[in-house]
């Protein structure tokens, strides 16, 4: 039992310890990155052991000690965070020394902050008590502020301040929700018993609690109308950190939504409707606002808001198909945003600007870059053969089955608008007919940067053609979410 506890705990102990060691040792960039990669490998091994046991023995969940509750969804989230952080570190290894050389004495803190953030996220994903989950998620969010403000210029500091303030205050509402449920049921609110506890609440109190959770986790996920921090934070953070935020940090909000609001939505139609209306707003507004952006990272950020609306709407459909589609799209969102932000990062690296008007070049110069950006843009629209096609389709079917055909139409429409916005940006950058802007100092793309982008693009295609690879993982995650409702 003790060895089991230690083995499963490695998924968060390894990154947390590594984060502390890197911070204290103050090693150089390569040492910090190597230690980080090593700890992520250890964490992934630990997550895999949990996954293996659940899958092999056909268990619904693992309960280790009194504090840990591991089910398919915990495993899925841990895998995703570990995967994203691995590529973020590899990308940072080249990107950070080139673009942020003025901060070279703080590189070790940069890697330390990533590892601590990963550690606290992984810890939160396996904790049972919602108060402790809140503490873990909150600390990981706060630590990530250091990463957003890493450039230390006025804009990045202001974006970091806004993020810290809005997300902290917003997520306090979800803390109030936990307090209210706990007060009314007279017990500790655990993920394993939240379904039973919600059943004990009166309708008015349940609606109030669900409202508080929605405010808290929508703010964390960056969904409309609590999205104001997201475009600025995404734009001002270093590119690798933007990918980390899109692929891991905002997913914390979805973790919270899936563990709380989904359960309420299974019992109360009003909650389902409220979330779907807000999600539809996210889809539409995100796509429309993306259209007029002049900053490439902000453009992708608004597309991201739109896409996240797909996920939140599907999460509350109280059907296996909806939850399955939402989880599949959660992964695809990470991959799509990875491709797009990594590609945008390369453009920023080459041209020294985020403004679309200042990046003009021909496709023949960087064909692989053009290819990866286009794959990302088309995947956002849910085009075949990319995996987002399958997840979007599952969500559209689930929405139609759940009598939310109008949301399905909004979803298809906003996906289309986002793709058009991205393709228009690609056209303006790669097929510009006027005077081309020279790549600064004639530099070439560092291979690791291009590889990160291409690998994410490749995965979008592989998972689109062979979705079976992911089936058991997503199925187990979907069942994990649904099980806590029963």
């Amino acid at each position, binding site marked *: 039992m003790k060895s089991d506890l230690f083995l499963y705990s490695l998924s968060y102990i390894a990154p947390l310890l590594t984060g502390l060691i890197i911070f204290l040792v103050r090693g150089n960039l390569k040492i910090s990155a190597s230690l980080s990669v090593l700890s992520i490998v250890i964490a992934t091994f630990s997550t895999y052991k949990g996954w293996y046991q659940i899958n092999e023995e056909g268990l619904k969940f693992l309960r280790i000690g009194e504090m840990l509750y591991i089910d398919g969804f915990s495993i899925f989230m841990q895998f995703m965070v570990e995967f994203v952080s691995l590529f973020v570190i590899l990308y940072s290894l080249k990107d950070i020394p080139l673009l942020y050389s003025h901060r070279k004495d703080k590189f070790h803190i940069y890697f330390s902050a990533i590892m601590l953030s990963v550690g606290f996220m992984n810890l939160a994903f396996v904790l049972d008590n919602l108060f*402790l989950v809140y503490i873990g998620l*909150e600390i990981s969010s706060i630590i990530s502020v250091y990463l957003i403000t890493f450039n230390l210029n*006025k804009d990045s500091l202001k974006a970091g301040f806004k993020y810290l*303030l809005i997300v902290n205050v917003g997520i*306090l509402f979800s803390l109030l929700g936990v*307090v209210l449920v706990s*007060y009314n049921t007279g017990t500790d609110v655990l993920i394993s018993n939240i379904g039973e506890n919600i059943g004990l609440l009166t309708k008015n109190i349940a609606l109030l609690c669900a409202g508080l959770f929605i405010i808290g986790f929508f703010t964390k996920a960056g969904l409309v109308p609590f999205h104001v921090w997201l475009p600025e934070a995404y734009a001002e953070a270093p590119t690798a950190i933007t990918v980390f935020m899109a692929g891991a940090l905002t997913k914390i909000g979805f973790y919270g939504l899936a563990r709380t609001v989904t359960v309420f939505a299974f019992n109360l139609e009003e909650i389902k409707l409220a979330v779907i209306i807000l999600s539809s707003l996210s889809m539409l507004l995100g796509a429309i606002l993306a259209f007029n952006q002049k900053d490439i990272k902000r453009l992708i950020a608004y597309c991201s808001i739109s896409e996240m609306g797909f996920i939140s709407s599907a999460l509350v459909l109280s059907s296996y198909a909806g939850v399955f589609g939402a989880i599949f799209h959660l992964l695809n969102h990470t991959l799509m945003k990875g491709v797009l932000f990594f590609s945008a990062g390369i453009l920023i690296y080459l041209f020294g600007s985020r403004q679309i008007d200042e990046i003009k070049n021909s496709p023949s110069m960087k064909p692989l870059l053009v290819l990866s950006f286009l794959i990302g843009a088309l995947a956002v629209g849910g085009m075949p053969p990319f995996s987002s096609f399958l997840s979007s389709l599952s969500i559209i079917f689930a929405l139609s089955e759940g009598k939310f055909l109008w949301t399905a139409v909004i979803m298809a429409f906003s996906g289309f608008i986002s793709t058009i916005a991205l393709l228009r940006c690609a056209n303006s950058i790669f097929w510009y007919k006027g005077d081309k802007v020279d790549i600064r100092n004639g530099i070439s793309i560092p291979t690791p940067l291009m590889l990160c982008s291409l690998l994410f693009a490749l995965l979008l295609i592989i998972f689109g053609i062979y979705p079976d690879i992911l089936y058991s993982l997503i199925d187990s995650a979907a069942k994990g979410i649904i099980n806590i409702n029963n």
Partner: protein
Amino acid sequence: MEIIYIALLFFTFVAGESRNLKFASYSLIPQGLLIAISVYLLAYMRNISSFYLIASLDILVRAILMPTVLIILLKSRLEKEDKPTITHPLSIALSIVVLSVGYNFMDTIRITSFPNVLSCFTAGFTLFIYGLFLLLSKRDMVKMIISFFIIENGIHFLIISMLPNMPKTIEIGLTFNFIIAILFFIYITMKLNILSIMEQVKKFKIDNNAFNFEENKE
């Protein structure tokens, strides 16, 4: 107890509405002390031993540590608040309305809907609402930190009043979160202050050079 809560709300009002940021930060010290005193009193009256630890933690964190770092932060910037989104007299009037109406309204709600909560529930909720109001009405970064501080204090009171038997580890964890968040706020604001000072110095140098050039020309 009622007098303590009213005094607490008074110092909160001073912290929220004082134009002098140093004075506003100093007002957080009696506010923190009053929070700790009320928790001590609740511990004594209700015989809840864990509250003694929480109250001691409150003195350390809310009455000493956090206001101190805020005062240190003010050494590197002007003590006058940036212009808020609404005029100062209106802000004062609205604050009085929010605090007084909020307190009385929540007291009625407490008696009718939450009969089992401790008395600090009303003050906690009023602090929470008032903190949100300040957050929306103020533009100064230090005032925003103070607003966050007030919201956090409100949540702290609400948790104590609704879940008095909550495990100490969770309460300590939440306080730890609060400390880290405030330290990050201070870090960002300090860096921004340094940047704006550097910008001003640079601008002054450029202006000075231009002036000297003009003078030499003449």
